[in-house]
């Protein structure tokens, strides 16, 4: 029997990036908000302590801050012909855990998607014909890039993003990304200072006629005070960024941009070490009653609430919907149902250059989002008329670290141990440079999420099952961009290079990206989307689901700029529209 708690206006599930933004916006509107987070409380001085944060083994290899598979695993397979098995250790992607979520240990590469990405189906159909995308399940988002601009701007200013705009109100800006869609304002901070590697990459690609520009970064180029009055410090290029909390208050996260203000609000409460098991929706009802959660002593509670906002990260948003019976589960056979539909990822490929030892890159002088990008082959910034695919990839030179357990390249053909390995490792450490293509991931009928029939969590409930492989379209795209990377490698003057191309058979046993998207997507048609364009469930009207789960498909860019913008959009919709007529759908089905 669950213990019943006093009612709240809003219960937020998960206190990561989106949960903290939504909680703050709604608490500011005067609502009584409780956020329920399954991991521990975390803060900079105590948990990301400079005295012991730079510890590769503990944080990057054993992954102290991450969700452990023992607590909740996911089963994986490439297609319905295979048996899904649990990822016994999270390797391929690394979900977060605890206050701040994955925003604690992200890199901070903070992008806007292009206008054409939001109306992708219409855009590609108009330009290349419906036949071109017939094998894909591409959809429009139900929101335009112009509508997203203001929300992006709020997230960038909250987070102190350091970058150079490429297109302000239609005017191309020197030094920025010339392919960028029009935006209303510049970034709040200038780009980071460049280290040698990305500068060299910019030289090489610039001479080839490409358009390199500084990658927009949530590692702050300068000291900054955000609109909530919270001060952040300049990044010190420590090189312990991705997978680590920042000890300097230099990387934007819930801790450094929202929580100091949010925690002081008397109408907000955070409960940690409490895992939400289910959103309670009576059978057939259009309103949820609240959530059931269990604390770390095993005690179960029912928290009644008028509004439930699920901010548990893409994967767990979808699992909670499936476990709670919100919306109709997607069936890849019939193509019907919405929850679990359009799971997408990121189609990556890499290049490594091996120079003579006259190059000294100091790879340890680095930050998670410090680098240069060429967007010449991303999205639809290049003409696809004569190509056999849609989509594209950003080519990024963001050498984020030189931590030696993982980052100690050797030229191809080198043994993996012994005297020869030692010499090659020593000779290569300073003189090698990597860059990569981060490609779009477009939906197909067969890539989806559902509940696993065999494997269970600690409470006996089915794990989430992921069925995913790279669609042929995306592999053709990735190979095309890998060919472009190879041209850059040839022009670089390196004595040797490798290009690791993406291939069929998505491999969960090597780290690729924690950019999982879709499964609870937004759209204008309730038969093909789980959420309306305000991230409100079509089926249960007081449930909003915030995160990359809402993306109908993923662009060739990191997701969190768009995730943060959507969090502001959903919070605004609740404040400004939903509260006027509680319980009503914001869009007529």
């Amino acid at each position, binding site marked *: 029997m669950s213990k019943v708690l006093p009612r709240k206006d809003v219960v937020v599930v998960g206190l990561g990036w989106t949960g903290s933004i939504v909680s703050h916006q709604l608490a500011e509107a005067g609502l009584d908000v409780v956020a329920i987070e399954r991991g*521990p*409380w975390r803060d900079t001085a*105590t*948990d990301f*302590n400079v*005295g*012991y944060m*730079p*510890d*590769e*083994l*503990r944080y990057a*290899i054993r*992954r102290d801050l991450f969700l452990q*598979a*023992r*607590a909740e695993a996911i089963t*994986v397979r*490439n297609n319905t012909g*295979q*048996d899904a*098995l*649990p*990822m*016994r*250790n999270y390797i391929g992607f690394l979900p977060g855990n605890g206050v701040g979520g994955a925003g604690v240990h992200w890199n901070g590469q903070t992008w806007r998607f292009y206008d054409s990405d939001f109306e992708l189906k219409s855009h590609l159909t108009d330009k290349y014909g419906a036949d071109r995308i017939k094998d894909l399940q591409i959809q429009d988002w139900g929101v335009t890039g112009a509508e997203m601009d203001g929300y992006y701007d709020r997230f960038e200013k909250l987070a102190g993003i350091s970058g150079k705009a490429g297109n302000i109100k239609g005017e191309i800006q020197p030094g920025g990304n010339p392919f960028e869609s029009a935006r209303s304002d510049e970034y709040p901070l200038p780009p980071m*200072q*460049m280290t040698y590697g990305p*500068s060299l990459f910019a030289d090489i690609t610039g001479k080839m006629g490409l358009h390199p520009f500084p990658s927009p970064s949530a590692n702050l180029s300068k000291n900054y005070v955000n609109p909530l009055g919270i001060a952040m410090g300049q990044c*010190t*290029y420590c090189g*312990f960024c991705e997978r680590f909390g920042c000890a*300097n208050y230099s990387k934007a996260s819930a801790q450094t941009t929202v929580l100091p203000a949010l*925690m*002081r609000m*008397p109408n907000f*409460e955070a*409960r940690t*070490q409490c895992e939400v098991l289910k959103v309670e929706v009576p059978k057939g009802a259009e309103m949820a009653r609240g959530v059931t959660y269990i*604390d*770390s*002593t*095993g005690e179960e509670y029912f928290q009644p609430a008028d509004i439930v906002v699920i901010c548990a990260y893409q994967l767990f948003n979808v699992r909670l919907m499936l476990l709670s019976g919100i919306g109709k589960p997607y069936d890849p056979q019939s193509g019907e149902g919405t929850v679990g539909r359009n799971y997408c990822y990121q189609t990556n490929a890499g290049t490594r250059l091996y120079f003579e030892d006259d*190059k*000294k890159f100091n790879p*340890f*002088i680095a930050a998670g989002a410090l680098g240069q990008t060429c967007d010449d082959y991303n999205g639809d910034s290049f003409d696809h008329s004569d190509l056999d695919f849609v989509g594209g990839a950003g080519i990024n030179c963001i050498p984020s670290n*030189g931590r*030696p*357990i993982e980052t*100690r390249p050797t030229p191809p053909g080198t043994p993996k*141990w*012994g*005297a020869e390995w*030692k010499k090659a490792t*020593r000779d290569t*450490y300073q003189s090698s440079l990597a860059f990569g293509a981060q490609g779009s991931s477009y939906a197909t009928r067969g890539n989806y999420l559902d509940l696993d029939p065999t494997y269970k969590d*600690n409470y006996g409930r089915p794990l989430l099952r992921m069925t995913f492989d790279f669609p042929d379209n995306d592999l053709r795209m990735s190979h095309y961009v890998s060919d472009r990377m190879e041209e850059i490698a040839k022009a670089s003057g390196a004595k040797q290079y490798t290009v690791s191309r993406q291939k069929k058979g998505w491999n*969960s*046993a090597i780290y690729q990206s924690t950019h999982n998207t879709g499964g609870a997507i937004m759209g204008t048609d309730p038969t093909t989307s789980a959420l309306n364009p305000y991230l409100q469930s079509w089926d249960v009207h007081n449930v909003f689901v915030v995160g990359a789960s809402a993306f109908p498909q993923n662009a060739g860019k990191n997701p969190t700029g768009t995730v943060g913008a959507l969090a502001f959009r959903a919070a605004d919709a609740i404040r400004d529209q939903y509260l006027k007529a509680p319980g009503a759908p914001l869009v007529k089905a």
Partner: protein
Amino acid sequence: MTSLPLRSSRRAFLAGGVSLLVVGALSPVSAHSYSGQLPWLIDNTEPPVPVKPGGWYFFLPDEVALMSAICDRLIPADDLSPSGTDAGCVVFLDRQLAGPYGRAERLYMKGPFHPGLPTQGYQGPNTPAQRFRKGLAAIGKAVDAKTPGKKFTDWDAKDQDAFLTSLEKGDVKFGNGLDSKTFFAFMLENVMEGFFADPIYGGNKDMAGWKMIGFPGARYDYRAWVPQHNKPFTGAPISIAGSVQWGGKADK
């Protein structure tokens, strides 16, 4: 705000001293409610507990000898660095395997266990500690089958290297449910962790691994060096435990 308990048990968890049985959440810290102010307790940090060499917590004497001989071949002593064993890799492995890592405390260990595809990752039912125990025993057996009555440590370096190469290729049949290729890759990964992790965990003694490649360790502010393109960084490495510049003992 409810008060925070000291996280002493979590510290012990990191040090590998205590076995914890917690359902669901992995941390023994109990649930909390926070409101009205940022929770703050100065004693709430969880520094790592330094490994002290001396004694073996996991390895048996024969295993210590075998593991040391292997580490001396994987990372042989030369003018670039001392050997893997002299750099503390075996001590590192011992403490890791005796702790939560060895016990697979963070892995999903529920059945059914199926071999699966390589793209689904390691699917065996063994913990890392069990993999080492069984893998080293299988190596001992394979050596005995080749040269009855002799041990790996009796072989010369050339024969040892040839044997390690055949393990790496998967040419040795273990016959105990483990596959020699997978075991070798796993063992190598753990040895390299020892050679390159912060010395506080027992390996990378005197920052030997870092000195070999020029990694400056736990430094945290490189701003002065950012604009100095193509110039090798010259500062001495620093461990979490300290640096000779600070009177620390780690860098001799």
